[in-house]
């Protein structure tokens, strides 16, 4: 009965490869997010989607492309991985229309470029 799940939990890949991280939430929320946490533990928003529509894009390189097949899923695709992409990526969800709102986070995916 995990609320927000991400796969894989660990991802080790060579620079230049293309990879995807999947996220699913079973909370019935309308809004989903991707955050990046760097080695210094700074947690910054990358994207948010509301009902499959992009609403926030925080100057993320266009090598990163989120895809939302339905409102319960928000996947993150990374093209041509670079060294600075190594980080922990967190997916989160919240219910739109509630202010203030609580975001529920997934366990994170640790991406390591080699």
């Amino acid at each position: 009965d995990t609320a927000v799940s991400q796969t894989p939990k660990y991802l080790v890949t060579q620079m230049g490869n293309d990879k995807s991280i999947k996220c699913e939430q079973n909370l019935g929320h309308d809004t989903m997010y991707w955050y990046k946490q760097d080695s210094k533990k700074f947690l910054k928003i990358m994207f948010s989607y509301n009902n499959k529509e992009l609403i926030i894009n925080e100057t993320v390189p266009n090598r990163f492309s989120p895809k939302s097949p339905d409102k319960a899923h928000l996947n993150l695709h990374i093209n041509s991985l670079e060294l600075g992409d190594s980080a922990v990526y967190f997916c989160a969800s919240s219910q739109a229309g509630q202010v203030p709102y609580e975001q529920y986070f997934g366990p994170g995916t640790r991406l390591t470029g080699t």
Partner: protein
Amino acid sequence: SQELEQSPQSLIVQEGKNLTINCTSSKTLYGLYWYKQKYGEGLIFLMMLQKGGEEKSHEKITAKLDEKKQQSSLHITASQPSHAGIYLCGADISAGAQKLVFGQGTRLTINP
């Protein structure tokens, strides 16, 4: 510069001691969220503050939001090893845009 500043960045305390973590913003905080993160895990929601002067408690953790809604403090009483982890404050500074910004986190270590 970070929109939310946390202090201290790391904290080592003896088990049983009290401690305080601060979160400061130059902008009005429309919602202030405290999360805890353990290594290799996601963020666990602790509590949320919205109104100026508001104070909430959960077990031995108390959080306050100042009257001006620009600073919050998290206080742990009689710390235990289970309190160890990284504490992150997150805030909505854009009045309902559903975009949280986070502080840099405070790494708390509890020594037995």
